[in-house]
């Protein structure tokens, strides 16, 4: 094909009608990677994933005969990839993959194998990286070879029904825009724990579910996502820096190798894959970055792992769509976004889920996307369309953030639709009537919000004691439970048992104190208790520890002694 028009990253080429839609191309002498967007009998439109400065009219564009793909295989973990899945680090990185992997077979020759059959595995840090029969290949295993294998080597040979021999190596390519096949979608029945109290306890997310974190600038989207990447209970974490700051990626690269996953005691970097298209990198590759991410997520899901994928920020991805759409001179829908914004968002979030994989194993993909609404206005298209495909909505409130109430998750505007799915898990696994405790905490907050509006008019002193106590309890919930300091060593993440302990301490305090008020103990006697300060400080204590046990029992003691 020959270029006849250049408009930023969009090229128009003369073609004989043979190039295919979605085909990958290389343009110009610099072999810039691109993708075909639309075709006609005599021309094709191509989007280029790089800066097109320097390209000329009349230069050649070659079709590669296959769609935009990434290479899947061992060595992805610990790496930093561009939006196209190309490693960004050239020098020796802490996570530099070994060139040779030790392959241990799991099946023997003559066995019948199907797409997804686990042929064996290679170690990738702490996890077993399964080498599976790629989608589309069924037949008899004729040969399998254990021991060291380099990227180009064949580890297994399969005779397909047609009699052809398929050679299987450690790697295979997969088109990023295509969903990897699976056996069955399963319902959501287990919570995904982020380590953030307000999320896990009040607005939970299920494993395999989807959540969105909308918030204006500085509301705390990135800190929440970083916290989840650090402490979320997943086997594999995929973090997509989509059109955000370079310094935030630099921060992950500095911090993660130093921090350990509390469950495995291994460096966080050994379960993390970063995809970085920072705001100064080409916009077109921003559009592809989330597909690259979700494809890798599906690949590890197929091995039976629990994967969480975080995208900061999906708004930048949507803006990339908008920019490309506008250069294609498509007719815009709302605020310049293309009419297919909703369907693209759906395609992404629908790839999350709880799956029975081709291998027969179960794996999950939990997707969490930040949304950066223009002007902090949640009625804009990206927020509104995203809401249709997610079930946990974690609204970050600008006012809470400016009061430095972090994480600034609004307890009035946020919601989770996973609660009915998760109640069973809590009863079976934590012996806690979580739904009841949760409701109690929500009630306290609601009552306090209501009373605070009254205080603004009549002043605190004119409230009856019972209402004063409700305000105090609301304060305890906010300071002692909802607020969580991500820079504090012990508070940065909170295991579920500690969440229950703090929630109980607060609701017990409130119940007992209400009771005592009825027995004519004065409000000021209660508000003067040292126990109050102790409740607020529980979150800064190590768990489990004698310190927190002692604090809890002395809080109980003080309440009993109240007369």
């Amino acid at each position, binding site marked *: 094909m020959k270029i006849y028009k*250049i408009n930023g990253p969009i090229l128009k080429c003369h073609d004989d009608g043979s190039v295919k839609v979605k085909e990958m191309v290389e343009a110009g002498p610099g072999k810039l990677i691109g993708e075909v967007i639309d075709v006609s009998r005599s021309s094709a439109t191509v989007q280029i994933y790089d800066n097109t*400065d320097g390209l000329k009219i009349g230069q050649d564009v070659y079709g590669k005969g296959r769609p935009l793909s990434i290479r899947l295989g061992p060595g992805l973990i610990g790496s930093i990839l561009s939006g196209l899945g190309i490693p960004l680090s050239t020098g020796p990185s802490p996570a530099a993959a070994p060139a040779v992997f030790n392959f241990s077979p799991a099946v023997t020759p003559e066995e019948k194998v199907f797409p997804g059959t686990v042929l064996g595995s290679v170690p990738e840090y702490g996890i077993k990286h399964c080498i599976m029969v790629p989608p589309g290949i069924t037949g008899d295993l004729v040969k399998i070879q254990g021991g060291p294998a380099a990227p180009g080597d064949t580890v297994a040979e399969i005779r397909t029904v047609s009699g052809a021999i398929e050679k299987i190596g450690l790697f295979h390519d997969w088109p990023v825009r295509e969903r990897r096949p699976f056996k069955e979608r399963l319902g959501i029945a287990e919570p995904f724990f982020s380590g953030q109290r307000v999320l896990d306890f009040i607005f939970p997310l299920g494993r395999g579910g989807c959540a969105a974190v909308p918030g204006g600038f*500085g509301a705390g989207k990135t800190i929440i996502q970083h916290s989840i990447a650090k402490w979320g209970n997943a086997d594999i974490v995929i973090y997509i820096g989509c059109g955000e700051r*370079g*310094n935030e990626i630099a921060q992950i690269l500095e911090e993660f190798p130093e921090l350990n996953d509390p469950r495995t005691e291994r460096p966080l970097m050994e379960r993390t894959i970063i995809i970085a298209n920072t705001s100064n990198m080409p*916009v077109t590759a921003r559009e592809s970055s989330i597909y690259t991410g979700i494809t890798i997520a599906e690949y590890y899901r197929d091995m039976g792992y629990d994967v969480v994928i975080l995208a900061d920020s999906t708004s930048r991805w949507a803006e990339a769509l908008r920019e490309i759409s506008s250069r294609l001179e498509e007719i815009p829908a709302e*605020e310049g976004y293309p009419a297919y914004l909703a369907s693209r968002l759906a395609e992404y979030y629908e790839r999350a889920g709880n799956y029975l994989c081709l291998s027969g194993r179960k794996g999950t993909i939990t997707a969490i996307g930040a949304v*950066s609404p223009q002007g*902090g206005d949640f009625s804009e298209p990206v927020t509104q369309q995203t809401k249709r495909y997610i079930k946990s909505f974690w609204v970050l409130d600008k006012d809470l953030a400016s009061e430095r109430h972090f994480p600034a998750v609004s307890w009035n505007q946020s919601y989770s639709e996973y609660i009915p799915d998760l109640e069973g898990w809590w009863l079976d696994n934590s012996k806690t009537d979580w739904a009841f405790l949760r409701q109690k905490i929500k009630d306290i907050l609601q009552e306090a919000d209501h009373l605070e509006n009254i205080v603004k008019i009549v002043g605190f002193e004119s409230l009856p004691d019972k209402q004063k106590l409700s305000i105090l309890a609301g304060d305890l919930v906010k300071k002692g439970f909802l607020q969580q300091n991500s820079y504090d060593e012990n508070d940065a993440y909170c295991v579920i048992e500690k969440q229950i302990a703090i929630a109980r301490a607060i609701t017990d305090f409130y119940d007992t104190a209400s009771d005592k008020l009825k027995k004519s103990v004065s409000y000021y006697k209660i508000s003067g208790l040292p126990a109050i300060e102790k409740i607020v400080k529980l979150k800064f204590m190590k768990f489990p520890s004698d310190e927190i046990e002692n604090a809890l029992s002395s809080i109980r003691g003080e309440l009993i002694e109240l007369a």
Partner: protein
Amino acid sequence: MRYQILYKNCEKIWGPLLAVRGVSDIPFGVFVRITMPDGRKKQGKVLQLENDLALIQVFEGTKDLNAKDTRIRFDYEPFRIPVSAGMKGRIFDPYCRPRDGLGEIISDETRDINGVPINPVRRAYPRDYIETGISAVDSLITLIRGQKLPIFSGSGLPHNEIALEIAKNAKIKDSSGNFIVIFAAMGIKNDDAMKYYASFEKEGKLDNVVLFFNLADDPPMERLIIPRTALTVAEYFAFELGYEVLVILSDMTNYCEALREISSARSEVPSRKGYPGYLYSDLASIYERAGRIKGVKGSISQIPILTMPNDDITHPVPDMTGYITEGQIVLSRELNIAGVFPPIDILTSLSRLMKDGIGEKYTTPEHPHLAAQVYASYAHAKNIRMIANVIGEEELSETDRAYLRFAASLEKEFIHQGTEGRTIDVTLMKAWEMLRILPRKELNKFTDKELEENYGGSR
């Protein structure tokens, strides 16, 4: 290899754009020299190519161009500017041509003004601070080396004066490195520009600055290149010569308006308030040029200044800026009316990187707690002030009245400092002075030891 062909087939000229036909073999994105009918020259850039038609953005405006006599010559490469250590103390135009009449600079290196995006893997996370000389900033909204921290101002507020104070007083702690301020003015008034120069000259600070001027009556389209020119020079000083560079860009609202003009001339689909959908990416290509690089000495920090139309922080210009920068310094009309200079609203301002560049290793160990305390106490005091307005001051408790005195002193003695530059030591000492107005038991952000050592004296 340069193309010397002069194209004459100018087909259409509108807004800041020009279309020329009959071109061939032109690289996309290159710079263009345009000869006007009267022989004067202008510069432009290729925005789009289609067959033999090139669409060109004319930086200096299309005034006085006609279709018949205009001549166009294409460069064979992106626009490059000369860079050299000899630029210190000089004033340049957006093309890096001296505009101070002091003669050409000698340089043996030229650079593409678009720079090269820093690979995130090569970035070093910003640490350590820059002393701006402004108490409110240094103590509560500390600027970290490699950070981008904008000033959100409004029309009529003294942001240019603040910029000047910062440019004059800013320094780095010890003389551990060389420090330089690069100042790019977009659409500022002639007298302001003269004032800047005179004041640097007077303070003997000329050796620490490089100035780039596009004045109010200069072509608006040049505003699109001046920040890039300034940052290219900054990158040379920082990553080639090892300087700690502070780049001040004023006023980014003027920049964005120029961007909007181009976009609307091209009839692009706008997003909000007529600004193009790529406003975010475009601003990021400027702001993200701040930072540090692993294994390289210098740093680039940025203070972009912008005026919020109607003081509206949700306007696309401050909004998109806030989404890219690492915090913001917000000016308050209320404090300005009260005669506070600089009128910084410390409650809505924030430096996101501050925590990594202050404290034990950089300033004083209790600095993080001090900042949290001043913030919390002032927030509380402002609430009390509101209540006092309703129920009257007499009804307040002794403690509450202490809060009112604290807020008043903080505004009048701490935030307000006129044109006196303060060192970090003076600033932190003054902050303690303010906190001592409050009863000791109110200071709950400190450890007992910190209070013992710092509050003690005047109990």
